[in-house]
């Protein structure tokens, strides 16, 4: 049972990290700990809990900018944005339910550290693309800032974006500045029924190559679609295309999209409320929630290669899977706790990377949770880690051994 340090503000974080660096004590960095079960399992001396560092510092809707303390609940931020009809366009995923916990519990810092991006990533970019500025404390126990509060900023290195997806291994964020955007007025989802995975990827590729501004392209084989209430009644594989915007625009684009997709199979339409529920389920990989500690992988690949990669994994392991990002993101749920790492890596021999998002602690203690790096990139990664955290005290080994 480790001791927990709970800083009240940036100064406390500096004190805590500087002390830990001096004493060579390792720190597990958490917001509210909703994602502590993701990553290689490692022992640390103390837990640094940043959840008290909370509150919206600045929100200027007309400037499309929000600055918020890193320990703020993401749900709080999303509510504040919704009240002004704005949103985080990258649609941050909530892995609470997938990992057996509550929904809506994560922090903004955790969101950025994990670069959680949802289905709209294909159009709006990832969490990192919306990170404008950061205040953080490095593993050296030094507070620093980088970036700013404006989008067009090439003044120095973009450290806010580097911290995105770094899983707390480089610095403890205390304040984050994000780009926010208007939320779409309306939404609808065009569905094609009964496609096999390869045809589905073809359809998604065709749709993404049009000017219809598709903001979500996903495919669920029948057995996975059956677990999503908004499409279960369709009783078939579901290939879905989201259209967002103003009603006349959606109507116009829907017509064009349906003309393109009709040759592929039977069409259906999910109206606004069902659409929102559907994409929410995909965003949070809800079909695989409630699976206990059965291994779940999140795989990134070139979209057109999705079906080949998915097919190879399913054949080798009996896994269930579904596709997002027009085939470029594959969620894989193994039949039980065994991760079948070899099959995953083999399927990705041609490119792409896989992250073991859910697994028991025992599995995470031995599996390579993050895609192994080539020797050159591994060396560069270690040097970058050392430059921010020379004593290796922040989430050591969370991503890779020795980092």
């Amino acid at each position, binding site marked *: 049972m480790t001791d927990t340090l709970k800083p009240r503000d940036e100064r406390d974080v500096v004190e805590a990290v500087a002390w830990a660096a001096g004493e060579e004590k390792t720190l597990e960095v958490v917001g509210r700990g909703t994602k502590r079960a993701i990553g290689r399992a490692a022992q640390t001396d103390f837990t640094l809990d940043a959840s008290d560092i909370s509150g919206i510092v600045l929100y200027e809707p007309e400037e499309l900018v929000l600055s918020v303390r890193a320990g703020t609940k993401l749900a709080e931020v999303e509510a504040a944005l919704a009240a002004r009809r704005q949103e985080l366009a990258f649609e941050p995923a909530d892995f609470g339910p997938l990992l057996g916990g509550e929904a809506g519990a994560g922090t903004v810092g955790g969101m950025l550290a994990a670069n959680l991006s949802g289905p709209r990533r294909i159009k709006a970019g990832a969490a990192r693309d919306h990170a404008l500025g950061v205040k953080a404390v490095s593993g050296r126990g030094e507070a620093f800032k980088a970036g700013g509060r404006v989008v067009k900023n090439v003044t120095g290195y973009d450290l806010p974006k580097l911290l995105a997806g770094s899983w707390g291994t480089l610095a403890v964020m205390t304040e984050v500045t994000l780009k926010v*955007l208007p939320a779409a007025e309306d939404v609808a989802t065009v569905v094609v029924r009964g496609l096999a995975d390869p045809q589905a990827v073809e359809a998604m590729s065709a749709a993404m190559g049009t000017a219809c501004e598709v903001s979500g392209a996903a495919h669920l084989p029948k057995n996975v679609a059956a677990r999503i209430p908004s499409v279960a009644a369709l009783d078939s594989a579901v290939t879905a295309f989201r259209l967002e915007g103003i009603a006349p625009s959606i109507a116009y684009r829907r017509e064009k999209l349906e003309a393109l997709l009709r040759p592929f199979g039977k069409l259906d339409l999910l109206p606004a409320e069902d659409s929102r529920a559907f994409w929410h389920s995909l965003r949070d990989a809800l079909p695989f929630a409630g699976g206990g500690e059965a291994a779940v992988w999140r795989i990134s690949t070139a979209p057109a290669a999705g079906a080949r990669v998915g097919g190879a994994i399913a054949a080798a392991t009996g896994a269930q899977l579904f596709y997002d990002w027009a085939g470029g993101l594959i969620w894989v749920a193994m039949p039980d706790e065994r991760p079948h790492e070899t099959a995953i890596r083999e399927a990705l021999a041609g490119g792409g*990377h896989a992250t073991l998002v859910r697994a028991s602690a025992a599995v995470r203690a031995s599996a390579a949770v993050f895609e192994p790096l080539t020797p050159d990139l591994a060396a560069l990664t270690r040097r970058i880690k050392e430059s921010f955290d020379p004593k290796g005290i922040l989430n050591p080994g969370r991503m890779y051994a020795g980092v």
Partner: protein
Amino acid sequence: MSLVMPELDRAVLDRRAEIAAALRKIVPGEGVIDSVEAMRPYESDGLTAYRTPPMLVALPETTAQVSEVLRYCHAEGIKVVPRGAGTSLSGGALPLADGVLLGLAKFNRILEVDYENRVAVVQPGVTNLGITKAVEAAGFYYAPDPSSQIACTIGGNVAENSGGVHCLKYGMTMNNVLGVELVLMTGEVVRVGGKGFDAGGYDLLSVIVGSEGLLGVVTEVTVRILKKPETARALLVGFPTSEAAGDCVAKIIGAGIIPGGMEMMDRPAIHASEDFAHAGYPLDVEALLIVELDGPAAECNHLLERVSEIARACGATTSRASNSEEERLKFWAGRKAAFPAVGRISPDYYCMDGTIPRAKLPLVLARTRELSEKYKLRVANVFHAGDGNLHPLILYDANQSDELERAEKFGAEILKLCVEVGGVLTGEHGVGVEKRDLMPTMFSEVDLAHQERLKCAFDDKGLLNPGKVFPKLHRCAELGRMHIRAGKLPFPDLPRF
């Protein structure tokens, strides 16, 4: 004008002939240039106030050659300055007198266009517009469109994280690059990312893009290509004051509308443009707004109506919507010709680049006018209103004794003001040498040290483009030292769990 650059390495300069011979073994024949005359075109980039003949110029054609050149220079302690087309406006490609200028212009091939994955894999010397041209027959384009796109290279775009008129809606280079092949100063060739959406591991692309030639030499780039929007229409609106124009911009964004592009010009810029390009701009307005809406036709027309209404409500005195592609291009012709137009009315001009919160524009413009009187130099303003990126053009005559100096002081005051009002020193042109010494107005020494240590992780000898971006050069060993605090347990009064 004195610009302090890193101390010259006399030992390297003394071995110039030997170094040239060694480089010729790697890049044969015309791949190495050592005559003063032939090196002249490489003395300067777009920041023409500064010229430095490099020690040597090397023009490799393959990644293997780039790797060997860097490996050799690393072993011999020779500095290297990479260069694309040399259009940088901040001196990013300004040579070092004791360094090798590494030109990537021969890397001019498009390697692959993959419409299924909607990416193009290209060499760094391909021009920005060249990428669009390669895919336009299929109805695609590469979105980031800096004004120099006819000449600037994608490698340079990666180095500067270039923007352009349409980056408000479509993002900057950073948001449109999926992968690079990068050669480190040691000669190691690393591949980051590819055709997938995320590269995995640390987000190296986020620091490689915008690294201004300090972290590595880019030898291949994978970019996203998009289907061209179905329609684009532009609205040309004149306002009696810049406050009214700025207010209109805020209200458009506040209404939930993100135009494809939104540009503003002030009276001097409008007049210079009209004299040159004859695009039909109104001459009796203080500020001109060009708003472009793109997308499906139905959406375009609907949004154009809404924007017109908003402009009317903000006191617009003139308003014209484009009704044909020809007309839309004409609206833009004036704005795109703004810089050369200004070049007609002044022997020289100094193009500034800073970003401010949009709402601060009237304040910054008013202060700029005051500074114009203080320094007795004319100024014309072009503004990427959509994202707050400001381009004041300070007019001067280099032949008049101290005008360059006054122009630089004027510019520095504008940039400090940008930072003061919550903005940044540079929105798209980069820090280079031009804004290097102003970095301390935005970043403390500790802030800069964290960035410099990142640089050390890529280039521990500091041989790649030293003297750019960071005001003070530190040795990596010096930066790495940690000061350990005495070991008291932090905040002992707080409860433990």
